[in-house]
Structures are given as structure tokens and as C-alpha cells.
């Protein structure tokens, strides 16, 4: 079983979607239970990654490789390093919570909803495992189909606009990456990511490829100025869709930078690092201000996601400045570590925030902040969780949100104090928009009579929010296991950064 652990992780949820679909609309509970069973099984199997993966050894482990298409030398090759393991665990963890979270909320065609979620989960795991560029691309694109359906069928009133925008935006980004990958294949005769990373390329070639990759992953992350699909998609998506989108899908953009831009085009990445750093800082500061004025809770959290993901791209590309310009590998390592921790942490925090909003939306069917107020008076338990996640969102020490941002700011200080100064603004702006949100939603008098009728969270919701809360706290207090898991992979990345290709 361990020889095919990764294949099992990818295909179990995808194949598991078939019985869920077959259960049909006539037996919604059967569909739900089968889906839950599949999600739990996937999570359980993903836990085997921890003992099976040796964090002290760099490079890909648990490797599987079969020739897929011989005419094009495409391989079905999978492998994980520390970064992938962390992201896969995040995916399977969130996978259970979105199924539980949707239990009785989704009444319309629940079997299709659950099946789409499972397929999506399998494809996302596939993205994190693929070590063949074409296989990666196939998973990367295939993922759009279930998400398109999820937003389109179960979304809000403007769901069609949002989901089309989501699909076309992402497709637009990735098709240029495809051209880049074909170019690389014709040059190297292989789609293997490791082979491509050792392929010598001139700076001109690298620059073109860099921008091809940048557009693909920048849309996914998303970075300013191609972030505009995200608020729309988040606002219109059903709660589960928003959770998966924020918790896992955005991470694929950051992950793509690590797998493609850094190893394949290191010199161009170094040359254009300032572009990404600048865009990241704009995301952190400007999008923070944009979040401040939002009136829709989901939109606010969506913009805050863009700002937080700015730290991921900042951490990744600041490492280039540190290694290449200053030879400071320790700080570079810190920056990359911080970016990784931020990815995982943001997965938990944003997933939790969207789940909280979902809880409120299920009761009042509105996401507008002004319709709420004084929720804590009627939903004390809910208030507890909400405040906890809000604190994590603004980066309070002791929560996971603090660790990553702190590491990135610290490392950018070594590169250039001014970058650190601008990035640190997030501590103020993030606190401002999050606390302002909490103030308007939770505190104060109950003014809306409907709010007074809201019931506190039930056992199912308690489970979802409790699981997120545990993850946020554990990661905040004791991030060492996570950093240890990714340590050697990050070290290896830092070495890759230093390799000149021209």
C-alpha cells in the first residue's frame, strides 16, 4: 500500500465520488454518509504520510513513476517533499470539514455537491503530488471543473457571473504556462520537473518563461492586479466552496511558484523579483485598506485573503534578494519558511472565517455586516470561536497567523528595512479591518429582531469550528513540527535559488 500511497490519496476521493453520485437525489443521507466516509478515509490515509515521510532527507520521496504516454515522454510520476506533505494534510483535513459543514445546509442535489467536493479534493492532492509538468497541468486545470459547478449550482444570486469569471480568469492564466511548458519540453525532451530544473536556459528564454509562469500563478494566488475574480467567487460560492477556495486552492498558486518559477527560471526570477515584491506589498497595504471598507463579510475576508497571500509571495521572492544579492541564506530560509507557514496557517484561518460566516448566513441569509450586531448576546459559543479566528486573522501571537507573518517580516528586514516597514503595516491594517468587523457583527446591542432569534451553534458546527480552532492554536503555539517537516525541503530550495543557469 505504501508504494502507491500517493496514487491512493489522489484516486480514492475521485473514485469515491461515483458511489456518492449513484446514491442519487433520492437517498441524500446515503450520499452524505458515503462522502463523509470517503473524506475520513482519505484523511486517515494521508496521516500515513507522516511516518512514511522522512523529513531529514531532502528531495522527493514516496516516488511513483510510470510511463504514461511514450510518444511524448509523459510520465505519471508522483512524489512529495515536506512542503507537499504539509499541503496534502491541509487538504484532507479541510476535506472532512467541508463535507460536515455542508451536511444539512445543502438541500438541493446534495449527492452532486458531495461528489464535486470529493473530486475536487482528489485533484488538489494530485496537484501537490505531481512531479511531471504535464500531469501537474492536467490536475491544475481539471480542478476548475468541479469548482465551476460548485459555485454555479449552489452559489448566491450572481453565481453565474462569478463562476464564469473564475473559470475564464484561471484558464487565461494557465494557457500561457502551457505554451511555456511545451517550449520547455521541446528543448529538454522531458516533462520531468527535476530535469527541467537542470536545463540550461538563456536569460531571454527565462524571462519569457518567468512571465508565463507568473501570469498562471499570480491569477491563482491571486496577486494584484489579477485578484478581482476572488472577491466575486468567494461572495457567490457556497460556504464549502469558499472554504476550499481560500484554504487550499489559493495555496496552489504559491506552491506553483516554488515548483516552477524558482527551480526552472531562477535567474529571471531573481531579475524580476522586485516586480513580485512590489505587487506583494501593494497587496498587503492597498488591499488591506480595500478590506476595511467592505460591507459584505465574505468580501472582507476575501480581500484579507489577498493581503495575506501577499506575504507568501513576498517571502518566496525576498529569498532571491537575500541569497543572490547578500548571500544571506539564513534569512532566505526564514523567509521561505515563513511563506510556507503562512500558507498553512492561512488555510486554517481563512477556512475557519468562511465557515463562521457560513454559520451566520445559514441563520439569517444575509452576509451584509449591517444586518448583524450583538450576535455574541445570542450565540456565545459562536462568538468565542469568531473572536479566536479574528485574532488569528490579524496575527495575534499565540495563533498561527502570527508565526508566518513574523518570519517573513523578519527576513525582509535583513533584505531591506523599508520592505519590512511596509509589510509590517499589515499588523495595523489587518487588526483594523478584522476588529472593526468583529465590533460591528458581534458586539453592541441587538438591533435586528432576527438576530435575537438566532440559535447558538449545534454539535455539527461546533465540530467544524472546534477542529479549525484546535489547528490554529496548535500551529500558533507549537509550529516546530511543521517547520521541521519542511526544513530540509526549504534548505534544498535555498540551494536551488543560488544556482545560476546562464
Amino acid at each position, binding site marked *: 500500500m505504501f508504494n502507491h500511497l500517493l496514487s491512493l490519496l489522489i484516486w480514492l476521493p475521485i473514485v469515491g465520488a461515483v458511489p456518492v453520485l449513484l446514491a442519487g437525489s433520492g437517498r441524500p443521507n446515503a450520499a452524505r454518509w458515503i462522502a463523509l466516509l470517503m473524506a475520513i478515509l482519505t484523511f486517515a490515509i494521508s496521516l500515513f504520510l507522516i511516518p512514511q515521510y522522512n523529513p531529514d532527507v531532502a528531495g522527493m520521496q514516496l516516488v511513483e513513476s510510470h510511463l504514461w504516454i511514450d510518444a511524448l515522454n509523459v510520465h505519471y510520476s508522483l512524489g512529495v517533499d515536506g512542503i507537499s506533505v504539509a499541503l496534502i494534510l491541509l487538504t484532507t483535513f479541510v476535506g472532512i470539514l467541508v463535507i460536515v459543514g455542508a451536511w444539512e445546509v445543502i438541500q438541493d442535489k446534495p449527492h452532486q455537491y458531495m461528489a464535486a467536493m470529493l473530486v475536487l479534493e482528489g485533484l488538489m492532492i494530485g496537484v501537490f503530488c505531481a512531479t511531471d509538468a504535464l500531469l501537474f497541468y492536467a490536475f491544475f486545470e*481539471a480542478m476548475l471543473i468541479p469548482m465551476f459547478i460548485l459555485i454555479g449550482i449552489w452559489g448566491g444570486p450572481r453565481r453565474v457571473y462569478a*463562476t464564469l469569471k473564475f473559470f475564464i480568469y484561471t484558464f487565461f492564466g494557465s494557457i500561457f504556462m502551457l505554451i511555456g511548458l511545451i517550449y520547455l519540453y521541446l528543448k529538454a525532451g522531458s516533462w520531468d520537473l527535476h530535469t527541467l530544473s537542470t536545463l540550461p536556459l538563456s536569460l531571454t528564454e527565462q524571462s519569457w518563461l518567468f512571465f508565463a509562469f507568473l501570469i498562471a500563478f499570480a491569477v491563482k494566488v491571486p496577486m494584484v492586479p489579477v485578484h478581482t475574480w476572488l472577491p466575486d467567487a468567494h461572495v457567490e460560492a457556497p460556504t464549502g466552496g469558499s472554504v476550499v477556495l481560500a484554504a487550499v486552492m489559493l495555496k496552489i498558486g504559491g506552491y506553483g511558484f516554488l515548483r516552477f518559477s524558482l527551480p526552472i527560471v531562477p535567474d529571471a526570477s531573481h531579475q524580476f523579483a522586485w516586480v513580485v515584491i512590489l505587487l506583494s506589498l501593494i497587496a498587503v497595504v492597498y488591499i488591506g485598506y480595500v478590506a476595511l471598507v467592505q460591507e459584505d463579510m465574505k468580501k472582507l475576508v476575501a480581500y484579507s485573503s489577498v493581503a495575506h497571500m501577499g506575504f507568501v509571495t513576498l517571502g518566496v521572492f525576498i529569498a532571491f534578494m537575500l541569497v543572490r544579492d547578500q548571500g544571506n541564506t539564513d534569512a532566505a530560509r526564514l523567509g521561505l519558511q515563513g511563506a510556507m507557514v503562512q500558507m498553512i496557517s492561512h488555510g486554517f484561518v481563512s477556512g475557519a472565517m468562511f465557515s463562521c460566516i457560513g454559520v451566520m448566513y445559514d441563520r439569517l441569509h444575509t452576509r451584509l455586516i449591517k444586518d448583524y450586531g450583538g450576535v455574541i448576546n445570542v450565540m456565545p459559543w459562536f462568538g468565542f470561536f469568531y473572536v479566536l479566528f479574528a485574532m488569528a486573522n490579524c496575527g495575534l501571537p499565540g495563533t498561527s497567523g502570527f508565526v508566518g507573518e513574523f518570519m517573513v517580516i523578519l527576513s525582509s528586514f535583513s533584505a531591506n528595512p523599508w520592505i519590512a516597514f511596509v509589510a509590517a503595516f499589515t499588523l495595523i491594517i489587518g487588526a483594523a479591518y478584522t476588529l472593526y468587523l468583529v465590533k460591528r457583527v458581534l458586539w453592541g446591542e441587538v438591533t435586528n429582531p432576527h438576530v435575537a432569534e438566532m440559535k447558538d451553534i449545534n454539535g455539527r458546527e461546533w465540530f467544524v469550528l472546534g477542529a479549525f480552532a484546535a489547528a490554529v492554536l496548535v500551529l500558533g503555539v507549537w509550529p516546530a513540527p511543521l517547520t521541521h517537516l519542511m526544513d530540509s525541503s526549504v534548505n534544498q530550495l535555498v540551494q536551488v535559488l543560488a544556482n545560476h543557469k546562464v
Partner: protein
Amino acid sequence: MPNINDILIMLPEFFLVTAACILLLADAFMKPAERVYLHWLSIGVLVVTGYLVLRYQPEGAVTAFNGMFIRDGLGAVLKLFAILSTILVFIYGRPYMVDRKLFVGEFYTLMLFAVIGVMLLVSAGNLVMIYLGLELLTLSSYALVALNRDSSLSSEAAIKYFVLGALSSGMLLYGMSMVYGATGALGLAQLHEAIPHSAMPHLLVFGLVFMVIGVAFKLGVAPFHMWIPDVYEGSPTAVTTFIGSASKLAAFGMAFRLLATGMGDFAQHWQIMLAALAVASLAIGNIVAIVQSNLKRLLAYSTISHMGYLLLGLVNAGPEGYSAAMFYAVSYALMSTAAFGVILALSRAGFECDNIDDFKGLNQRAPWMAFLMMLALFSLAGVPPMFGFYAKLLVLQAAIHAGMLWLAIVGAVFAIIGLYYYLRVVKVMYFDKPEAGTEVRLQSDFTLRLVLSLNALVLLGLGLYWGPLLNWCKQAFVG
């Protein structure tokens, strides 16, 4: 004198001609109630023909009748898939034709003669043979389009098709006569040898232009695409399916025989012409499709753009590009039969089910059909893991390898634009509510449902494992 060897080489064609003539006669003595036997007999004849094509497949290429006829790997692949798509047309089309009182013997015999045309065309080794195969195919097609003679839409489509088809045949013949004048050769192999020594290269280029126009008409690439939308919309849907699948395979075969086999050394001239045609097709096909409200018209414009992608493979002008283009033609044939198959399965007497609005809320009424259509549409749009994506991948790769990176980028950009209108149909099926007062009644024909399901699932299956098919396509161009 033809010897026994020639006849053996052309055995599949001879068998099909004989069988088609017998069926034509048999039909005259059949009662209307017995016509269902004709249906199964025609399918049986096609299956046997396909078997013959495969069974006595020689190594490499052999010619018959003094080079008039070439039997090789390319011909085998194209013939098999043309036969396969015709069988699919028969299966999907039967309930539709019965509902419209078009379930007549002519449908079957004309169809079989059109298939013979396809088979001769893709195996032609001589300019005269190309013309012969082409006319057999198109004359049968004109009549098929006009089968529903009481419908003014159908008649208009047939007239349009006929006039433009005749015009394009004329252009093709004119071009051929120029080339003949410049080289004195009619056989494609002789032509290939004579071209470098021709004393009149300008005349050759002049002739080439007209031949390319003729090919462009048949493929339906812009700006010679005018007939496509009207013919697609006006024909009985079963006939549209045939024109959208087997005919496209034939057109690819003709393009290959004329341009690559015959004028391969002139590639630098026709490459650039094809590149320009590809850009025009991609632009017109993808942009105009956005505003269509009729699904058959939408698929017609989609064909135009798909033929643009196919040209991306041909401009490579090497075995790699030819195999990519053939892979594309095969994939397109399978995708379009699936998409039209769903339309056929949902239409009933007095209801064509060809407006996009007819598909509103299909997921709530017939979730399986909606799913099959979704597979076909995502495949047409080129989203992995569907088959259509890999076909696009190969032609883009071929274009880049030929040093036409710009062309590949144009193709990529129009893929994004094209995505929109496919998504729009998915949106209508999945996200819209069904309109009150309308209903969906599936054709109850079990064979249709089964084969259609297989057809659409194959698009997914081949997307997961397309290596053998690609190897097969590649083998056709080795040596």
C-alpha cells in the same frame, strides 16, 4: 489490366460498393415496417468493411491501379474512424429520422455512398482520384442535406451547400489543371518528383493557391466557411453529425494527400497560406460563436475554430505535425458525434431541441444526458483531463516546433475566448432553472443511450490514456 492484387488491395472499397448497391436494390422490395432490417444491415456492412480495412492492412504503403489508389496507415486510421462515426450516426439518428418520417432507404444508401467517397478520397494517389472521391462524397451529402425536402430551411441549406460546393470543386479543378500544366503529372507521387524540376514555378504557385482554396472550402476554414453554419443548422441533425465527423476526416485526408503527398516540397508556400487561414478561422469561429442562440449553429462555428486548430498541426509540414493534425481530426470526430448525439437523443417529433434555451435546467430533468453533454463540451473546449485538451496540446506543440510560436500563442488566446461559449452551454444546463411548460423526453432507444454514453465516456477515457491512439497516428506517417 487490373490484376487480382489490385482488387485485393481495394477489397474494403469493393465490398462496400457491392453491399451498398445490394442494399439499394433490397430497399426497393422492402415494406416500410421491414426497414429496420436495412438499418441493422447497413451497420453490419460498415462493421465488415471496417474489419476488412484492419484485417488485410499491409506493412507500409502499397498502391493499386497504377498508383491511383494508395493503401497505407493514414488511410486505415481515417477510414476506420469515418466508418465508426457513420455507425454512430446511424444509431443516434434512427429515432430522430423515424420521428420525422425520414426513416427511408435513401438515407442509408446515400450515407453508404458518401462513406465510399470518404474512403476513396483519403486513399487517393492521383489528382483525378481525389476529385472523384470528393464528388462522390459531396454529391451524396447535398442530397442528404435536402432529405427533409418539405422544410424550407433544409432546402435553403442544400442549395447553399450545392452552389458553394460546386464553386469550390471548380476552384480545385482549376488549380489542379494549372499544376498539371506546370508539371505534366497527375499522380501524386509523380507530381512530388516533378515539382523541383518544373520549369514554371510561378504557375505551380498559382495552381497551389486554388487547390488550397478548394481544401479550405471542404475543411470549412475561414474565409471559406460561409456554408457551414447554414448547412449545420438546416440539415436533419443526423446528417449534420455526419458532416461534422466523417466529412472532416475526409477533408483532412484530402488536405494531406494534396499538400503533403503531392506538393510536399512546396511546403514553404502553403505553410504560410495555412497559417493565415488558421488565424482567420480561430478568430471568426470563436468570436462569432459567442452570439449564437442555436446550438447547432454554435457547434458550426466551433467546427470552424477547430479546423483552425487542425491547420496548426498541418503548418508544421512534418510527420510530427501531420500526426498531430490527424489526432486532432479523430478527436474532433468523436467529440462532435457525442455533442450532436445528445441533441439527437433529446429531440422528438416536432421538436428539434437545437436552441440553447432548450437545454435549460437539463441537469434537473436528465442529469445523465447533461453530464454526457458536459463531457463533450469540456472536451471541445480543451480542458484537461478531457481528450480534446491533448489534441490541442499536440497541435500547439507542432506549431511551436515548426518555429511558429506566434501562431501557437494566437491559438492559445482563442482557446480562452472559445471557452466562454462552451461554458455558457454548461451554465444553461446546470445553473439555470428549467422553463415551466417545457419538458424533456429522452428517446427511449436503448442502443442509442448505451452507445452515446460510451461515446462520451471515451472522451474521458482517452483523455486519461491517449498514448496508443497517438502512436497509431504517428505510425501512419513513418517512412
